């Protein structure tokens, strides 16, 4: 049922035909001259090629709609958007009609009302009257629009009953109630165009048309949760959130996501002390309107396995609860007892460490006379400074910017699977691949991306061969001619045994190609970070000095570091863990300090592009947990090296002194042009469980079982029992 948007205005239709076999979904036409038309007596000017509905919006006349969505292809099948156009005999579906110069449009006439009422009547004739038990209640387009266009009684007395449609099992995330479906096909278009799951479609015809996969199958996509937002009615709702809350009970907090390094903009909906759900917020520069399933559903992990009070390991190796002063004193005693000096004092920052705390912790460790600031990178580089260096920001950033990916005409993926490392970014590549003649090449472990690519080999040798131009093939040819070539190196490369070689090779290549890859208007060298804290780590200089690398630590401070290799921690070292989950890091510790999760603190996060964004506290931290930077600040006092700031403003002043871009939230500083130095497998094997929050999440465990280990289990029960909260 997809409409193929006319592609006549596409400049390169000839080459398109020769390249793309499957890329004929739709196209965005190039911006052309503006046209002027009259809507409800108001003149508006819109770019040529806009839909009439966009012109009406521009004129400030809202148009009701179900199927139209500005990020999806136009379907024109719900007819709710009917408007009257002068000299047209019938009402016109404004989403499917182009805005014409000089057209005179009315959106508020008796004809329009009657037409929309008719449409609504047909929609409601088969729609169940189950709003009281429907999760969409309160945020349902059908409910809202029927207030205006619905009739209070039915005229369908002759029908035998309402259409009954079986529910589909789309997996652990999407709950279906297909009787409610109004067949707008938004979900189908999303799955096919954006998510790249071409399994969702419409079967049957006419009144019996239904949405589904025809065969029994789950929706295997990292973006599947977005269909819940798209569905205008309650046909697709959230399984974990089912029957948990009503939208009007929720408090909304705008925040950013930290479960990957994209920094997707989110809205945290909470009730009391619990996060009830996470939804996307529109930001065209970052996540458009989508978020990944991990972002959306890992929040139930925030309720389990939390550290709620300070813990001190007793002589029998068991943790006993303690008060804050006791715990801090125990740390001071531990530091004294080990006699750690200088670089023997080590801090390791983990995936979910926020920027404020990194700055404060760095100051503390530096004041204790140490440079030993490591991160929990995997492999032999765990304790060493990263191979790409941190002196030049463009060495570790996504320089082309996330939105810039769409203007690339050839992409080379090196040791990364963006589908798992940055699912939302991956959908941008797919979008571009569908609508332009983008070519993608990949060096690294073959993965199922959602677009076609040419696999150039598994290892550093293959990369060398490609860069030296010894590879023949369509991709190599197109790469050579590309105007905006883009190299995307996975952050796993920095942790790979061949990492140094790979970065060296790429740096030489970029330098050798002169203006081709890096120039004034295009920086095509990108490192795709996969961990939220890394860009901030590098930005604030949270890396060890060469000398520190070889020191054996005696005192180790783990800040949210849960991916550390236990073998790298000497048995006699005194270990402090600060974080929010009792996971791997806490198990290694002598003292645990309970911190806040990302939904509980107001802190700065830097995404892979270097864009710093402000996360906001939606709920209070559980138990005795405290904001992270305050804990470190309090510790500094106990250790006798007072840090010179008292409040958040002070900390942010300090951040400003380190790098002003850290506190210019939402803005993006351009990166400098120098690239000083720059099977390659991705280190992410299970998209659904990559950090403490997602590991503690029941929903993510279900997803792992459904999509990663593919165990056959009934997912029916999920979401039915109320989840026990910690508080």
């Amino acid at each position: 049922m997809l409409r193929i948007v006319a592609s006549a205005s596409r400049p390169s239709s000839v080459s398109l035909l020769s390249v793309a076999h499957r890329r004929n979904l739709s196209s965005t036409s190039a911006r052309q001259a503006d046209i002027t038309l009259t809507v409800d007596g108001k003149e508006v000017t819109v770019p040529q090629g806009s839909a009439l509905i966009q012109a009406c919006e521009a004129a400030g006349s809202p148009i009701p709609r179900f199927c139209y969505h500005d990020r999806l292809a136009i379907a024109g099948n719900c007819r709710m958007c009917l408007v009257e156009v002068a000299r047209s005999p019938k009402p016109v579906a404004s989403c499917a009609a182009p805005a014409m110069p000089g057209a005179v449009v009315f959106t508020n006439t008796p004809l329009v009302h009657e037409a929309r009422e008719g449409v609504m009547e047909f929609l409601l004739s088969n729609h169940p009257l189950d709003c009281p038990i429907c999760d969409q209640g309160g945020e349902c387009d059908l409910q809202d629009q029927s207030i205006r266009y619905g009739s209070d009684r039915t005229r369908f007395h002759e029908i035998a009953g309402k259409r009954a449609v079986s529910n589909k099992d789309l997996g652990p995330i999407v709950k279906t109630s297909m009787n409610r479906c109004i067949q707008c096909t938004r979900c189908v278009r999303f799955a096919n165009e954006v998510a790249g799951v071409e399994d969702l479609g419409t079967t049957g015809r006419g009144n019996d048309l239904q949405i589904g996969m025809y065969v029994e199958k789950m929706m295997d996509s990292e973006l599947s949760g977005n269909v819940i937002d798209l569905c205008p009615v309650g046909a697709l709702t959230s399984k974990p959130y089912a029957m948990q809350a009503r939208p009007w009970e929720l408090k909304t907090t705008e925040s950013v996501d930290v479960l990957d390094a994209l920094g997707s903009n989110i809205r945290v909906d909470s009730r009391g002390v619990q996060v009830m759900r996470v939804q996307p917020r529109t930001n065209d520069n970052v996540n458009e309107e989508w978020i990944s399933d991990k972002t959306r559903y890992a929040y139930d992990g925030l309720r389990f396995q939390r550290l709620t009070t300070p813990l001190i390991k007793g002589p029998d190796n068991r943790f006993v609860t303690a008060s804050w002063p006791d715990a801090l004193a125990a740390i001071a005693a531990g530091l004294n007892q080990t006699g750690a000096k200088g670089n023997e004092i080590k801090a390791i920052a983990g995936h979910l460490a926020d920027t404020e705390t990194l700055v404060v912790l760095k100051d503390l460790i530096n004041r204790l006379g140490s440079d030993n600031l490591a991160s929990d990178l995997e492999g032999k580089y765990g304790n060493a400074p990263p191979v790409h260096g941190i002196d030049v920001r463009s060495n570790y950033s996504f320089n082309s910017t996330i939105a810039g990916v769409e203007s690339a005409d050839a992409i080379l993926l090196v040791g990364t699977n963006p589908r798992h490392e940055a699912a939302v970014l991956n959908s941008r590549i797919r979008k571009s691949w569908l609508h332009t003649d983008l070519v993608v090449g990949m060096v690294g472990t073959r993965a199922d991306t959602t677009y076609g690519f040419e696999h150039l080999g598994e290892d550093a040798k293959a990369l060398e061969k490609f860069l030296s131009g010894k590879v023949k093939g369509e991709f190599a040819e197109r790469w050579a001619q590309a105007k905006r070539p883009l190299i995307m190196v996975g952050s796993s490369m920095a942790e790979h045994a061949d990492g140094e070689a790979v970065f060296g090779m790429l740096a030489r290549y970029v330098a050798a190609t002169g203006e081709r890859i890096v120039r004034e208007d295009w920086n095509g060298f990108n490192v795709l970070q996969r961990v939220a804290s890394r860009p901030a780590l590098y930005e604030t200089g949270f890396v060890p000095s060469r000398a520190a690398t070889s020191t054996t630590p005696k005192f180790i401070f783990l800040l949210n570091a849960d991916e550390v290799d236990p073998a790298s921690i000497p048995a006699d070292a005194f270990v402090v863990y600060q974080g929010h989950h009792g996971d791997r890091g806490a198990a290694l510790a002598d003292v645990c300090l309970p911190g806040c999760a990302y939904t509980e603190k107001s802190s700065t996060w830097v995404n892979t592009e270097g864009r710093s964004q402000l996360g906001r506290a939606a709920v209070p931290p559980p138990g005795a947990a405290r904001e992270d930077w305050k804990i470190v600040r309090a510790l500094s006092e106990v250790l006798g090296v007072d840090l010179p700031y008292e409040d958040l403003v002070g900390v942010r002043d300090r951040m400003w002194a380190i790098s002003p871009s850290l506190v210019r939230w939402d803005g993006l500083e351009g990166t400098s042009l120098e690239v000083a130095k720059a099977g390659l497998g991705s280190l992410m094997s299970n998209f659904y469980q990559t950090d403490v929050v997602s590991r503690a999440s029941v929903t993510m465990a279900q997803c792992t079982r459904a999509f990663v280990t593919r165990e056959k289990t009934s997912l029916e029960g999920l979401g039915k029992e109320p989840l026990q909260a910690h508080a």
Partner: protein
Amino acid sequence: MLRLPRRLPRLSPPSSRLISSTAPKRSDALFIHRDTPYNNPEIAFKFDAQNLKRAQEIISHYPPQYKKAATIPLLDLGQRQNKGWTSISVMNYVAELLEMPPMRVYEVATFYTMFNREPIGTNFVQVCTTTPCMLRGSTDILNTTCAHLGGLKPGETTKDGKFTVIEVECQGACSNAPMMAVNDDFYEDLTPETTKKILDAFAKGEKPKPGPQSGRKTSENSAGLTALTTKPYGPGEFCQPEFQ
């Protein structure tokens, strides 16, 4: 009225309308696939050599990037090879051949009612019951057919697997109404008697002569010609002498 075998029982309208519930209206065919022993993706299907050649011929009619335009003809070819019905394996095979997501083929196969997604008997009897046929007595024809085949209901197959009867919409032969189609042939101008005769012949494995059963030629007036009854004049007649 969809044209699919295996009709689900139709619910009679509830006699009184209760406030608390709405009767479900089910569709008369399932638009989802459930694996069964006789229809599951494990059962292999492939075109035989001859059909493969035809398939390639059909595909060659379309530009390579629009190969999927061949979906309908290939499904038809598959249905013919697969004893008259399109199993899930046929759909998957067509999808593979045309390099398209299987769902796109399922969409087509479920949209068009002439793709039978359940097995049918050797003789597929499709009785037209649309208005013109109905005015000319198709209800009788349908009843006769069902009764003659041992009391079937439309949508069912006889026990011996020889006949499947369904009701269909207009077949475009209204001028010879009432009519039915058996496999690929039309039997027109039916009466209950001729219907029985045709069915008996098929039961014996013969193939009666298709077309009008009343003896008239195509759809000529059964009362004889009323117009154009004179001999048509030949070339040159009534023309200027130089053209004669």
